[in-house]
């Protein structure tokens, strides 16, 4: 066994042990065990995936289960793992955010929640990390589905962890039902793939689809729909803004930062490795990406609940990733390889950036909950005095997600604009929308940061004294925030991580070698003839000049005075401007959009499902119980036949 396999296997083993042991203990001990073991195994995953990415190797391993468990048929007969650069990239993200979230989670959980249920949490937490990691490294459709379902199940328990809160249970239920429906589509798709194309072989490597064949069109649509439900693309996004805020904050960081990226992994495999890029699929994916970023972010602008705002932004930022992915598929199909590579680079770059800054933001929101017990942006304020480190990491992450130079979101968004503006045609318009939405994101995070941290509070909860944030919760945020800065000013680091995937894909399409378009040095990115960007230089200039000005002015004596409130002597906090009024003018200017979306939501999410439900009830009344049993028996029979065929 190679070192990489050893690392991954030991990580998986430790996670398994962790989830089992934490069931044996109760209360704080179980959280401690699961946090330490999960953090350690995540570190191993990070090491393993870094080795894969730096060496640019493919590690494969088959464990024939059928010899160990007698009578197991061939579908589950082999447990095969294939870690190529794509798997390595995603498992790196899982390991990185998982490590940080595990450290953060310990104090957060034992302080905020009752100790009775903590064993259940610890079990599910380790299980969640385990299933995510396995989902991206198995190379077998059946095992992929198994771990995918396990991931949904364990994360659903984490979402509805607060059993006493009706809303949390409901959100978890909604999340589970919707994503389960997506998983069913994936199952049907995989069945078609296995039966029709790969001669009963469940390995990824065997699947080669002809994109114009009607059955494979059906298969791809099933896969794409199933994956986009999990990735929360519009119109399947409605579960996300309910589910992500309800989970404990570090779990929200994992859900938003990592879990919704797993479907993107499968999308990349499906549309780049199972089949050739085609123009229509590129256009469909890019269109859905553009719609997603538009709808998600404009709704995020309206939110006044800190975690719900972040959750809607997750929808929006997924739109950026999917838009760039779609654009790259389209451009590859159009044989514009250079731009296609830029778009793919941008998509992966934004993906890793999003998992960094969104996790940071969720952790900061969690710290605010820890300190004040509130998520309401209308009431919060002035916390930077009490929690300076949280405030700093929230500021860095907010500037990163807004794409302000020289932070990491800037480079990836810039790359998305470069590829889409240069492509011409319909993708160009999506680029324009993306740039507009970047402005909306900025506005939204100006609101997020200033309402929580900088402007004076309406009234501080808990007797004006927010709780002190422990170091084990501050350090994880700062770690992620510093990675945001690092990935922003030194784009060569993420490029080294992405390079393997780009090479794999360009090799498989025999892209001409002269399209070596991306030119990255220590502190610069340049796309030959298209655009250049020197974030390191910008950062140095920005920091040095502004600090020089500050240093020059610091010698002058600072006059301290009260806030000016039009000459009357009232406290500034009494003239409070609530978060919901920040952009009310803008929302009014866009009321057509909001009204249409709300109407669509009531029709498609509330009315039509309710009608279907009532008609189903009528149907079930018509069919007697005996008929029920008959149907179930029939279903089991079909299943057995299918299994026997295999």
């Amino acid at each position: 066994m190679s070192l990489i396999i050893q690392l991954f296997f030991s990580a998986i083993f430790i996670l398994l042990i962790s989830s089992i042991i934490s069931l044996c203990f109760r209360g704080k001990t179980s959280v401690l065990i699961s946090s330490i073991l999960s953090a350690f195994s995540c570190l191993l995953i990070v090491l393993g995936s870094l080795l894969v990415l730096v060496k640019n190797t493919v590690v494969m391993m088959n464990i024939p289960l059928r010899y160990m468990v007698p009578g197991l048929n061939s579908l589950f007969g082999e447990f095969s793992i294939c870690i190529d650069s794509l798997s390595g990239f995603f498992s790196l993200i899982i390991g990185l955010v998982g490590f940080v979230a595990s450290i953060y989670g310990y104090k957060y959980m034992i302080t905020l929640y009752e100790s009775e249920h903590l064993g259940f949490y610890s079990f599910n937490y380790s299980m969640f990390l385990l299933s995510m990691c396995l989902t991206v490294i198995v190379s077998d459709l059946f095992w992929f589905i198994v771990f995918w379902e396990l991931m949904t199940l364990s994360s659903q328990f984490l979402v509805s962890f607060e059993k006493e809160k009706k809303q949390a249970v409901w959100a978890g239920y909604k999340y589970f039902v919707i994503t389960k429906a997506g998983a069913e589509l994936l199952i049907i798709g995989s069945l078609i793939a296995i039966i029709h194309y790969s001669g009963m072989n469940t390995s990824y490597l065997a699947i080669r689809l002809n994109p114009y064949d009607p059955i494979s069109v059906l298969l791809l649509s099933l896969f794409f729909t199933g994956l986009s439900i999990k990735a929360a693309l519009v119109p399947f996004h409605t579960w996300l803004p309910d589910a992500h805020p309800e989970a404990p904050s570090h779990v929200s960081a994992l859900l938003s930062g990592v879990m919704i990226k797993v479907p993107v992994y499968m999308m990349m495999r499906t549309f780049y490795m199972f089949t050739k890029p085609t123009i229509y699929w590129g256009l469909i994916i890019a269109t859905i990406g553009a719609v997603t970023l538009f709808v998600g972010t404009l709704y995020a602008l309206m939110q006044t609940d800190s975690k719900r705002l972040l959750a809607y932004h997750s929808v929006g930022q997924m739109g950026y990733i999917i838009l760039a992915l779609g654009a790259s598929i389209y451009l590859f199909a159009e044989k514009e390889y250079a731009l296609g590579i830029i778009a793919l680079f941008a998509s992966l770059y934004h993906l890793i950036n999003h998992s960094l800054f969104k996790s940071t933001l969720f952790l900061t929101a969690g710290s605010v909950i820890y300190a004040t017990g509130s998520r309401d942006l209308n009431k919060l304020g002035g916390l930077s005095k009490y929690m300076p480190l949280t405030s700093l990491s929230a500021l860095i992450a907010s500037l990163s997600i807004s794409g302000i130079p020289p932070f990491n979101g800037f480079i990836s968004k810039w790359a998305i604009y470069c590829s889409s503006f240069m492509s011409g045609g319909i993708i160009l318009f999506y680029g324009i929308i993306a740039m507009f939405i970047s402005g909306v994101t900025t506005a939204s995070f100006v609101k997020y940061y200033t309402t929580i941290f900088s402007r004076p509070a309406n009234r501080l909860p808990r007797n004006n004294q927010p709780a002190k944030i422990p170091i084990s919760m501050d350090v994880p945020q700062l770690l992620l925030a510093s990675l945001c800065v690092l990935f922003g000013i030194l784009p060569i680091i993420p490029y080294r991580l992405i390079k393997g995937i780009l090479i794999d894909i360009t090799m498989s399409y025999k892209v001409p070698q002269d399209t070596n378009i991306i030119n990255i040095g220590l502190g610069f990115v340049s796309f030959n003839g298209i655009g250049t960007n020197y974030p390191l230089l910008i950062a140095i200039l920005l920091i040095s000049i502004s600090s020089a000005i500050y240093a020059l002015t610091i010698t002058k004596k600072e006059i301290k005075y009260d806030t000016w409130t039009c000459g009357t002597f009232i406290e500034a906090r009494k003239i409070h401007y609530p978060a919901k009024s920040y952009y009310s003018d803008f929302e009014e200017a866009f009321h057509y959009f909001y009204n249409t979306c709300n109407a669509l939501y009531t029709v498609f999410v509330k009315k039509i499902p309710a009608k279907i439900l009532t008609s189903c009830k009528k149907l079930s009344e018509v069919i007697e119980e005996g008929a029920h049993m008959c149907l179930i028996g029939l279903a089991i029979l079909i299943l057995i036949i299918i299994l026997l065929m295999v």
Partner: protein
Amino acid sequence: MFKLLYILINLFGLLLLAPILDGLERSIKAKLQNRRGPSLLQTWYDLIKLFKKNPGSTGTPRFLVRYSIYLSFTTLLIACIIMPSIIPYSYSFIGDIIVLVYLLISSKIFLILGSISSGNPYSLVGSSREVSLSMLAELIFAEIISVFAITNNSLLIEELFPAKIFKPSLICSLILLFFIGYVESTRLPFELGEAEPELSGGIILEYTGLDLAFAYYSVLIRRIIYSTILINIIIPGNVFIHPILYLGCLFLLTIIYSSIEASFGRLRIDSALSILNKAVLIGGGIVVAAVLGL
């Protein structure tokens, strides 16, 4: 080595010119409104007076309130370095047109962060209006950049400045750039940060002395940057003609802008947003035309 010299000439030229142009604007507006008006150097005198004064501070994170204004100023300086202005050499070694626009936007965002952090509810109202405007302005910028990208097939500054062929769509997008440069440089009908009497001062309400000087100075530099982008596309890049033409166009543009400003009152926020919405639609039309090859 020469390159560095050119950068310095351009940078300090712009820094020197920006207050003089404001002085020109003030005197033109005064002439149009039958007033006597100040001298050309009056803005410089004001700035120097403010620079000598002590800074003041309020708000909870004092450091953020003050530092953000310097950040905002510095971002504009970097934008000045990227662009060719008085001497037409392109210095796109830092970035392209998207980076330039992003620097301008982030300068505004830094300013707003500091302003809201100062804790004054009135400057918060002003800031939120300003952000509402700049969201739509960014959309219009995106349309303009995409037209540039189509017509020049590159986003690099040395390819864009000056334009080689003037297609109708490019000319229309220049008109749009003229408009959005006007909106974004806090001139009168769109100066909504201080739309009500109690908001006077708007975003920079809480800044005094030295910091106020930097805030004013950044507004002036932002104006000159928008004008420079527009001029650079139009006038040829010849080393000898360029400086003269550049200065001529700059003064001409200032005269046009100030006479527009003198003849307008302030808009209400909703009507300003609806005007920008119309501009967005027009911009969309221009982009369609550019895609079709017009």
